[in-house]
């Protein structure tokens, strides 16, 4: 989307820098970057995610100044942070709640991508880098959750590292190598701390690649029609800086509400109990953002099968650009796909609910049995249905619907969709300058 850079250094000092390292140029190009003029609020989550990443790194490094990664002291050091370190309670709350906010934003960001076809050509790599970032986020969150060394920390780590033990032949050796011992122990805690510290910086690097890839291919937009003329776009600053700022403000209000009024609502009470290797909690549950995958894991009776299915659920995201056969990007113009997507979203929420509950409990009651107890569909069964839909959606529905669907007609251009036909014709005559796409890729439509 970006043509040649238009930055002109105005001062001798900035010219000196620009000749040696075009970093100011990079910043200036970022600010004037032509962005589609029809981006809605679903497009603000990228900026929100960048902000949370910075917040998590800063609060994380700060917590690292006070936290002690040792099984004897970890829990106590977190309590000391909350009680004795000046504003420690604020740092710890920002970090813990921030993790949840991070996932809230990333799911909105991904749902946007799914709906508007942001994973389609020429943005396949952008999407894949994004899924890789999501995977690293998940690893970071899991590692971080073990650090307070509460009951959920310990037993969650036991369950997840247990997955590796299910691999045939090499499983046990691999698991003990990961753990640094026979079971989750001090050796595990110290290495999890080290990895938790380093992964976010890898995430920063991937973010740079992600934004670079975005700026090279150009942003998608709600109608999925590539910008053709300058009138289709607006400079990133001030139009989208101010829109992102407003979205960030709303987001911060939600973030602050949890930090100051409900700091523990998104966590689990059991993590306020010191880890006890001899006592398993009644219900081991991961944090809310992992619940759908937890449900998928428990959907099949076979241990290894469940593990493969769970990793498969993420793996399928990597190949999404090639699963969806539709030539149309935005689901606004895909009447059938739109409904399957809506069901997908509801399905994701139900999967999350299933992940939080006990498999044998009744999810949907209908009738009573001989003893007068309620019977109905168990969470296990509901989990199987929702897991089936999850894979059905990506592996069957998207490929199939793309082929048979008759999409609604798309506007010829963004300007036309925004201003209406007449204006589009008028401006097309007046402004013949097309938008240059680096790499020579022709607009898809």
């Amino acid at each position, binding site marked *: 989307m970006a043509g040649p850079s238009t930055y002109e250094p105005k001062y001798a000092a900035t010219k000196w820098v620009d000749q040696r390292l075009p970093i100011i140029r990079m910043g200036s190009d970022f600010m004037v970057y032509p962005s589609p003029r029809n981006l809605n609020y679903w497009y603000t989550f990228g900026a929100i995610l960048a902000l949370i990443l910075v917040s998590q790194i800063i609060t994380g490094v700060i917590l690292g100044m006070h936290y002690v990664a040792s099984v004897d002291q970890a829990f106590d050091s977190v309590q000391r942070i909350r009680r004795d370190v000046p504003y420690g309670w604020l740092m710890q709350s920002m970090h813990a709640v921030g993790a949840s906010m991070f996932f809230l934003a990333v799911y909105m960001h991904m749902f946007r991508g799914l709906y508007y076809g942001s994973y389609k050509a020429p943005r396949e790599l952008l999407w894949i880098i994004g899924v890789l970032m999501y995977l690293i986020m998940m690893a970071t969150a899991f590692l971080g959750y073990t650090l307070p060394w509460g009951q959920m920390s310990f037993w969650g780590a036991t369950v997840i590292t247990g997955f590796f033990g299910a691999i045939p032949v090499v499983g046990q050796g691999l698991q003990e190598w990961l753990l640094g011992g026979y079971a989750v122990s001090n050796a595990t805690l110290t290495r999890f701390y080290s990895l938790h510290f380093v992964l976010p910086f890898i995430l920063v690097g991937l973010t740079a690649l992600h934004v670079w890839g975005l700026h090279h291919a150009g942003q998608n937009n709600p109608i999925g029609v590539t910008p053709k003329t300058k009138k289709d776009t607006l400079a990133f600053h001030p139009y989208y800086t101010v829109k992102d700022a407003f979205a960030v403000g709303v987001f911060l209000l939600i973030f602050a*509400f949890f930090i100051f*009024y409900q700091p523990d609502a998104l966590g689990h009470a059991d993590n*306020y109990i010191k880890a006890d290797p001899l006592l398993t909690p009644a219900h081991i549950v991961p944090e809310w953002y992992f619940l759908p995958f937890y449900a998928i894991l428990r959907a099949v009776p076979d241990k290894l099968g469940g593990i493969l299915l769970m990793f498969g659920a993420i793996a399928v995201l990597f190949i999404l650009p090639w699963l969806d056969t539709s030539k149309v990007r935005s689901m606004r113009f895909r009447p059938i796909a739109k409904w399957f997507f809506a069901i997908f979203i509801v399905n994701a929420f139900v999967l999350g609910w299933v992940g939080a509950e006990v498999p044998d409990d009744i999810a949907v009651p209908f009738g009573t049995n001989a003893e007068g107890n309620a019977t109905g569909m168990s969470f296990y069964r509901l989990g199987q249905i929702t897991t089936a839909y999850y894979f059905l959606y990506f592996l069957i529905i998207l490929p199939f619907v793309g082929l048979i669907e008759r999409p609604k007609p798309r506007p010829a251009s963004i300007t036309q969709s925004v201003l209406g036909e007449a204006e589009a014709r008028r401006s097309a005559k007046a402004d013949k300058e097309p938008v240059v796409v680096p790499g020579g890729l022709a607009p898809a439509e």
Partner: protein
Amino acid sequence: MLKKVLFSAAAVGLLFGAGTNGAVAAGGSDYGYKMAHPDWSFMGISGTYDPNAMRRGYQVYREVCSACHAMDQIAFRHLGDPGGPFHYEAYPNPNDNPYVKAIAADWTVEDLDPESGDVVERVGIPADPFPPIYPNPAAARASNGGAYPPDLSVMVKARSGGADYVYNLLTAYDAPKPADVKLTPGVYWNPVMDGGKIAMKAPLIEGILEYPVVTVDDHGESKEIAVEATVEQMAADVTHFLAWSADPKLEERKRAGFAVMAYLSLLTLLFFLSYKRVWKNVEH
């Protein structure tokens, strides 16, 4: 835009409904026991701790619970911190607070004699953490029929149901035991406890302690408060004290929260107005 606002409002509303202070028990326990939901002064967006309740609660802890239960996450000096039970404006530094010093001196702690290297006992000072009741978990179990009396520092946060759970656990011992439940010696029926069976005998009994008459300054005039130490009262007071020990920063947090939410609301409004100004006359 509207979608976004509605979504956020829904998310907020969903969790606001859970109460603004930890998780609240759903309503009934597993055995049909009707849970009471006392009107705690620390709930809500402007909730605060009641110092008198906390002081009575500390007394209950000291005279009843500390026989078996430790509180290893707090130190004596925390009692004198702002928001704590023995905080007084005249003593901003809890280490100088005479009440805190007296409370600390009421406990014996272990220390090392620097000359001989032997373990000796001395009276507590404000800087000391609350001492362990038993030397180690094995000793704790041995003294309690195999059951381990859990640490109470963060108990109110360590149970979903929070303060309501703790209060109801302490007051549910009177609930009638179902006929088909068999109890082994040393185990008691308590419908609030997970599984219904608890290894702790009812700790709070009418008359186990007496609250001293307290003189308070009520808008300039001295008032005497005499509180009767009923089981419900003692349970509520010790729960209040334990709620403080689990979340001593509650008052500071809520005060900061008010300022932050007010500021962010203003800032978001300003961003919104700037957004409207920038995008005025721009079709999108």
